[in-house]
């Protein structure tokens, strides 16, 4: 058995509105909002790293959980924009939290990285105790690389989200999870070294629209939970239109899908946990009610996790 202890997040102070992105990319302000649902995003300062964002989210999470870093048995950090090839940000996070010894591992998975890390943590918690899961991204330098791709650059933002998964009780029990990988479309969403993000948007939408509802349905059916009985869906905040499409496929109102993409854009591996942290602050889990987490991203990797408030 595994449980969520709590969540935390951190986003940079600098707010970048659509007018600023329009000036940078040439994309009209109204078009940006129409195709993505995004009105603003946060960009980190030049000297602010993925690890800095991750540490800030981790600290917020530990505070909310009332835990000391010394209680952690493992750290998992998902990011597609780590500042160097190795070592990754997980070790920096561990070191800055004062930890030496517990495994601190990186998952170089953007977008779906946090759902994969959560699913792994739920399986490892019995052996490692409290596991700190972080999704952290600094997309802004990638977006600025020439040639700037207007349809891509407007979609993303920077930030970090975190949670603690534990075997020793918490605010919600993790009931089940599933995750899959399909390398057939690896070229359709990729980030080469020192190159802008390459995205075949239509392919991403087609695959995501099929794979996300399917993996959610799988986890729900296995646990005899109907989509209509799910209290809240916390999905990777990729695009409001995609979130609406997944809701439609599952036959539930879009309002069941917590959304903050309007204010942060797509923060890739960080987005689902930033959303979860905000959602938790505004009420969060209710006793006995199911909540679904879901993610999808480059690879393509996808996954879903079912939890229930205790």
């Amino acid at each position: 058995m595994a449980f969520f202890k709590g969540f935390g997040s951190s986003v940079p102070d600098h707010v970048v509105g659509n007018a600023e992105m329009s000036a940078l990319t040439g994309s009209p302000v109204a078009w940006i909002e129409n195709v993505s649902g995004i009105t603003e995003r946060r960009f980190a300062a030049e000297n602010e790293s993925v690890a800095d964002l991750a540490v800030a989210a981790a600290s917020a999470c530990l505070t909310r959980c009332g835990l000391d870093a010394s209680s952690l048995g493992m750290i998992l950090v998902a990011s597609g924009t780590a500042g160097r090839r190795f070592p990754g940000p997980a070790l920096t996070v561990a070191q800055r939290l004062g930890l030496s010894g517990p495994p601190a591992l990186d998952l170089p998975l953007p977008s779906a990285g946090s759902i994969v890390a959560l699913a792994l943590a739920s399986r490892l918690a019995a052996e490692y105790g409290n596991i700190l899961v972080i999704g952290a991204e600094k997309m802004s330098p990638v977006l600025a690389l020439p040639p700037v791709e207007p349809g891509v650059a407007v979609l993303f933002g920077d930030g970090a989200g975190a949670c603690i998964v534990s075997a020793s009780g918490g605010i919600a029990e993790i009931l089940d999870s599933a995750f899959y990988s399909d390398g057939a479309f690896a070229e359709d969403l990729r980030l080469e070294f020192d190159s802008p993000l390459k995205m075949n948007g239509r392919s991403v939408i087609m695959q995501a629209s099929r794979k996300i509802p399917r993996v959610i349905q799988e986890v729900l059916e296995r646990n005899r939970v109907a989509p209509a009985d799910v209290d809240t869906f916390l999905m990777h905040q990729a695009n409001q239109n995609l979130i609406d499409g997944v809701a439609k496929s599952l036959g539930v109102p879009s309002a069941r899908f917590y959304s903050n993409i309007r204010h942060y854009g797509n923060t890739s591996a960080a987005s689902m946990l930033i959303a979860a942290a905000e959602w938790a602050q505004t009420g969060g889990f209710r006793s006995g009610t199911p909540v679904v987490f879901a993610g999808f991203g480059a690879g393509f990797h996808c996954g879903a996790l079912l939890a229930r408030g205790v």
Partner: protein
Amino acid sequence: MPEQLASRISTIITKVAQRPVDIGPDESLFDSGLLDSFALPDMVSALEQEFGIQVPDSDLTPRKFESISSIERYIESRR
């Protein structure tokens, strides 16, 4: 009959796009502005229903659903 097939495909596109199909069979449904990326999954679902086929993930590529002609070729290949 190919004409009937194209007509059935056009009917589906009209429903999904919520406007008449006013482009040629080889013109891009997307570049012409008739459909956007987010209408694509709806169109594929409607095609699956109409023609009683299941489009596997490996066939879910934009090129196969780019135009009425390409959709026609795909449907014929699945029959």
